[in-house]
């Protein structure tokens, strides 16, 4: 564990080990102080945890898009946050229409499925166009080239959608069936949070089945393993890559609607930026390129963000703890990368992939 003790002494290793100890100490001391003060009740902690799981589910669904593309192309699609935005922003108009006609509350299950399908298709189309127009011509270029292109594509998409739908904020209408809460003792779990977690799980298991059990999933794994050998085996790798972008896009679009049910406000052309960064962090946390890793990374990040500021920072007496929520999230990232550079579930990457 302590490299500098076993190997030849190195100041770098020593500093990293000191950093590890300090971070772990800060977490333990902060948490101990908060819990011993008892200002926040057990029921409130549980509520925060469940809200974190719901938020984390959305991060996880977006993170899957990053990880799928990385797994197959070894590129970070920084425009993926905008793919999420495209579905969420476009579907808010459908949701408004369904609400106006009364269909949303008369047949909520059907209406939500319709919205998820619509958002998934919009995001899938955007993701496929991105791959076809922006990334495919650059395949084989140095890795920095598609990365910079992705950042450019991200801005292009933001301002295209701003041009299409305007710069104002929109909100998803509230679905009555999701407005209640489940009471378990003193714990009050909002129905919408159960819906978010459950639907994200369904989508995640659907993806897992697709990749592990289906024929196209086998092709995806083969392309991810070695493109040239996969091509020799008769796999149309262009189609597989396009399909992967499409699947990632569909998940992101679905996440857009699920997010709209959970946090209805704040729908605009810029809404994908921060969730995109958080989901990328989640994918790295879990081990980029690893599907269960992205799921776990998303949930982990959501929970840490929800309970971290009140548990650790407030306990350390840091003022404005909630403003430092991102500090907690990214410190966790640093911590995981120090202890496990490959991420929680990631495997050590070969020289080629790293």
């Amino acid at each position: 564990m302590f490299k500098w003790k076993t190997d030849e002494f190195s100041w770098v290793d020593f500093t990293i080990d000191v950093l590890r100890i300090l971070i772990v100490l800060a977490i333990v001391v902060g948490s101990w102080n908060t819990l011993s003060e008892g200002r926040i009740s057990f029921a409130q902690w549980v509520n925060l945890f469940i809200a974190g799981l719901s938020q984390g589910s959305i991060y996880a669904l977006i993170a899957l898009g990053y990880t799928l593309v990385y797994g197959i192309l070894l590129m970070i699609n920084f425009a993926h946050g905008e793919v999420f935005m495209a579905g969420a922003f476009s579907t808010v108009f459908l949701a408004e229409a369904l609400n106006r006609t009364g269909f949303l509350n008369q047949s909520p299950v059907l209406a939500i499925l319709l919205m998820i399908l619509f958002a998934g298709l919009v995001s899938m189309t955007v993701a496929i166009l991105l791959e076809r127009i922006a990334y495919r011509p650059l395949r084989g270029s140095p890795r920095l080239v598609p990365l910079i292109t992705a950042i450019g594509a991200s801005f292009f998409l933001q301002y295209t959608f701003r041009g299409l739908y305007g710069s104002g904020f929109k909100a998803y209408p509230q679905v009555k069936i999701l407005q209640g809460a489940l009471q378990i003792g003193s714990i009050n779990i909002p129905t919408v949070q159960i819906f978010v977690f459950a639907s994200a799980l369904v989508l995640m298991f659907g993806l897992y089945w697709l990749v592990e059990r289906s024929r196209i999933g086998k092709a995806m794994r083969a392309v991810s393993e070695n493109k040239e050998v996969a091509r020799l085996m008769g796999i149309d790798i262009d189609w597989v890559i396009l399909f992967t972008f499409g699947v990632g896009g569909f998940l992101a679009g679905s996440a857009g609607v699920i997010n709209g049910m959970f946090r209805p406000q704040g729908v605009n052309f810029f809404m994908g930026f921060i969730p995109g960064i958080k989901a990328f962090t989640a994918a790295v946390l879990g081990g980029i390129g690893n599907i269960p890793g992205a799921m776990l990374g998303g949930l982990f990040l959501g929970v840490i963000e929800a309970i971290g500021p009140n548990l650790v920072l407030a306990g350390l007496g840091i003022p404005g703890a909630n403003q430092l929520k991102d500090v907690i999230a990214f410190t966790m990232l640093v911590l995981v990368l120090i202890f496990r550079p490959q991420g929680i579930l990631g495997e050590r990457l070969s020289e080629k992939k790293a």
Partner: protein
Amino acid sequence: MKRINVMKKTVASLLLLSLVSVLLNPVSAEDACRDNLGCVIVAEDEPIVIGAMLVLSGAVTYLGDDSLGGVELAIMDRDGELLGREIELVVEDSLCSAEGGQAAAQRLSADPTMIGAIGTNCSSAAQGAMPIISDAGLVMIAPSNTSPSLTNEDVASGGSHLPGYFRTSHNGLVEGMRNAEFAIGVLGSSKLATVHDGDPYTEGLARVVADTFAELGGEVVFEGAVNKGDTDMASILTEIAVYQPDIAYVPLFEPEVNFFAAQMQHIAGLEDTVIIGGGASFVAGFPENTGAAAIGVFVSGPLVTGEAYEQFLVRWEEEYSGSPPSGYHAHAYDATNLLLNAVEAVAVRSDDGSLVIGKQAIRDAIAATEDYPGLTGSLTCQEESPFAGDCAPGTALAMFEITEAEVYDDNWPPPVFWSFSESASE
């Protein structure tokens, strides 16, 4: 006698020579400049150039769109001309950050024909832009900055005012003090929580409200902050619920304020807490996007009334269709007129047909504004810190209460609950 004749001839020759030389070499525009900050020379047939530093991208683009409409309408109302010259508007994106303001100001001040600018929207952007605009000898007139620090010259107390900065929006100092008076005097509250987002505007307002609330005998139980872009407010709301305040003062922008209000109704312990928002949430999208949770929220915001304003709204409808997306379009209209009026007052036509516009003269002309009948009321620019550069009438503000009509029937603005010209103890 002969000597006198020679002298007369010499003097006459000299006079003739000087007349010829004057006619052949008229006073150049550069020579005509007597301004200690230098002059902007607008050559014959060249347009008069003014700038705008507004937020044109990012989450609060609606503020920039709102102000840009006001600026453009003010120019259109003059048929796009001033002193027989075309008015050219150069618009730069100042974002809603100090870096954005800095970049926009840098680009505008690099243009030697630039006279002054309308902007910025956000106080953070103004802090970045002000030193550059001031150093360049230019002026900036902000339509929606309200941070008290921007008109405060005392650096020790956080002031950042520099010459050349003016605003037609109200000072947050006035808004914050009146908000605290409202919370105690009208609502009868005794425990206050404040939440800002780190922006000088929201932080400044939260500070003033907390200080005034404490001075008036109330107890400030929680002072916290969130980040711009946060969607999850459950964490901070859980912390606030520990103290069960009567008032949550939340001067946040959309969408953070929407998330705050919507999520507050699910947090046990905050059932009786009333939200008061600042001018940033005085936007039709707030009740529309927040839904039922916005009902009962108080929002302080600009109160612009009068026939001229009604006509302005008709013009807006004609040009852009719909209604302005925020509450500071009239302030942008007034700011543009202050700048154009100053140009009109100080521009000197030189012999070569150029317009010579003294930079200090422009500043002085705007600073001398007194009882100017603008859309937002009677504007008088003040010179003394902490209100240096403040031109807004402090009374054009009110506390509005969001009702069902704003949430479900697209009514905007909401009914005035309490005007700032009233006494809180009434």
